[in-house]
């Protein structure tokens, strides 16, 4: 529901008074859904990891193999995608980064065509023109960019258009914590509050921007502080806790849908693997902690303790995910590469 004429900014004094949102506690089915999404994402990233390294040798040549180029995988960041996207419909927009697969999967991007894009095939989302950092699925309003923080501004425009069309759809803009030091981040926060846009900003804090730890790049311990300075509600969620993310995202999404404006969530998550494949991570001082912080076994234990999962259910969920993912990989591998004569196609409409 919009609270003013579509597309017109609401002056701050005319906005409805702020009310704290009610908690969003996931019911049993939702909890299992969160787990399934996380498992599907991990299964996917493991499959891409496996395929990426095929034929890269002798040694490691980034330009070789079935999947060439840079590869930024999201293992460990599944709770963010699962917890946030659980509140979205495919009519809502998501803008992601150079590390986009988890969000794409959780938001319902066509897995076959996404995989074909990563394999550079003509059946891919971008007919092989884009690649893994440039996945566009207009059916579910998903996009991503390889330029740091540059996904934030277009999300404002999608939110603006949704409101102008009189819908209650929203845009979710995601970046890493490293991106929060980029001008586009700050300009976007200001404009979103000023024009009361239905946006949820998400910052995935995985401690590292390539080799640079957060403490070396960022002057505040929490980006919630920065968002609050721009006049929007914000919170930082620790421990990669999927249900806490689900709760906070639920309130932020509801607020945006009700026309009450943007919010920001910073989520302390985990980059389990290298910045990109081939990153030796010599700089990484926290590697020994990584296995113990893996969010999937953690959540599995929680759901088992709650009586929602047992070993059999876990293996069924993993098997289902593997079937789905291998179907996508097979679709991609069975698809044709683009015709070089068509390289100039699609520069213009």
């Amino acid at each position, binding site marked *: 529901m919009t609270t003013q004429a579509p597309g017109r900014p609401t002056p701050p004094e005319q906005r409805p008074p702020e009310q704290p949102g009610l908690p969003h506690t996931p019911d049993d089915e939702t909890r299992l859904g969160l787990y399934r999404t996380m498992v599907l994402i991990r299964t996917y990233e493991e499959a891409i990891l496996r395929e990426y390294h095929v034929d890269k040798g002798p*040694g*490691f*040549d*980034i*330009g*070789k193999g079935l999947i*060439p*180029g*840079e590869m930024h995988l999201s293992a460990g960041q599944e709770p963010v995608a699962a917890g946030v996207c659980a509140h979205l419909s495919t009519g809502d927009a998501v803008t992601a980064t150079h590390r986009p697969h988890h969000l794409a999967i959780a938001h319902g991007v066509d897995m076959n065509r996404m995989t074909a*894009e990563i394999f*550079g*095939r003509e059946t*891919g989302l*971008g007919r*092989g*023109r*884009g*690649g*893994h*950092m*440039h996945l566009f699925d207009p059916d579910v309003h998903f996009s991503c*960019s*390889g*330029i*740091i*923080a*540059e996904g934030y501004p277009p999300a404002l425009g999608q939110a603006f258009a949704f409101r102008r069309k009189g819908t209650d759809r929203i845009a979710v803009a995601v970046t890493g914590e*490293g*991106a929060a*030091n*980029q*001008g*586009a981040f700050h300009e976007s926060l200001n404009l979103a509050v000023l024009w009361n846009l239905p946006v949820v900003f998400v910052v995935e804090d995985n401690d590292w*921007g*390539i*080799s*640079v730890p957060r403490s*070396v*790049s*960022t002057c505040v311990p929490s980006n919630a502080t920065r968002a609050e300075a721009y006049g929007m509600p914000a919170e930082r969620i620790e421990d990669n806790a999927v249900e806490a993310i689900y709760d906070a995202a639920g309130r932020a999404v509801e607020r945006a849908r009700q026309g009450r404006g943007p919010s920001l969530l910073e989520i302390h998550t985990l980059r389990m693997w290298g910045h990109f494949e*081939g990153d030796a991570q*010599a*700089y990484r001082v926290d590697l020994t902690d990584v296995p113990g912080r893996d969010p999937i076994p953690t959540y599995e234990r929680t759901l088992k303790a709650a009586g929602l999962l047992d070993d059999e259910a876990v293996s069924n969920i993993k098997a289902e995910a593997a079937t789905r993912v291998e179907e996508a990989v097979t679709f991609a591998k069975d698809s044709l*590469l*683009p*015709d*070089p*004569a*068509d*390289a*100039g196609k699609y*520069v213009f409409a």
Partner: protein
Amino acid sequence: MTLTESPAAPAPSSQRLTTAKAMVQGLELEMARDDSVIYLGEDVGSYGGIFSSTTGLLDRFGPERVIDTPISETAFIGLGIGAAVEGLRPVVELMFADFMGVCLDQIYNHMAKIHYESGGNVKVPMVLTTAVGGGYSDGAQHSQCLWGTFGHLPGMKVVVPSNPYDAKGLIISAVRDDNPVVYMFHKGVMGLPWMAKNPRSMGEVPAGDYTVPIGEASVVREGTDVTVVTLSLSVHHALDVADKLAEDGVETEVIDLRSVVPLDRRAILASVGKTGRLVVVDEDYLSYGLSGEVVATIADEDPGLLRAPVARVANPDVPIPYSRPLEYAVLPRPERIEAAIRKVVGA
């Protein structure tokens, strides 16, 4: 030489280095010589630069002079400008030239214009190092060359080494220059262990300090039938193609421009004056760029030098595609270079 004649082992006079190591060695010499030289950028400290442009510099010079920055290109490039104005000699790395988009104002409205706007009273002796080029499926936002764009905007020198010797000599010249110099290294010439490389990305480099003059092209292969004017990774391809064509009796002269600004127009004119035929190979976009500028040099000065129409092998104004067959179709791969030379010489 006998042992008695040489009590101390002489320092090696030259070594075989990759382009990346040669660049770092140049920086190391300059940083040791001049305390005002600092290096700033993303992942230039413990990582040593994503493309190995700073390996070992942190260990040698410490975090006060080799500084990891936040992902805030406008702020740290602007900081470089201010520090240069106050007498430091900053070398600032923009990780990929493609990222100029987020910080172009500092580059072209400030770094490049301050000297002119101040009537020559304020100098900006800074170097902007940046990685360019494609060929390994990094997609449309991480594969561009863009030297034509930098070259188009007045006030900055632009250098583009293709090999270890020039990489070292040009970085030393760039640091010593009182102007802003953009130093563009192609990932494919660096000799990185994780990327396809031509043997030319490794070569003999004098151990000591030397310079390669900015604005001077080099004739990297002499020939009589056709001139190929090129730069960066395309020099490697052009030389391979020239070797192959020599077997068919076509003698190709290859000119490595090395500098885009200033452009060594005399070298271009001299070579085309000799061969009468011109092929320009440029990995950047075709239109409004370097290849047109090279051809215009002939048209402006003496179109009568040409005995055949020129050929330009460049990116046909297409964002660089991800998928390998598409990317290879738009890049100046050896096959396209060979076809262009054959057409121009009628072979």
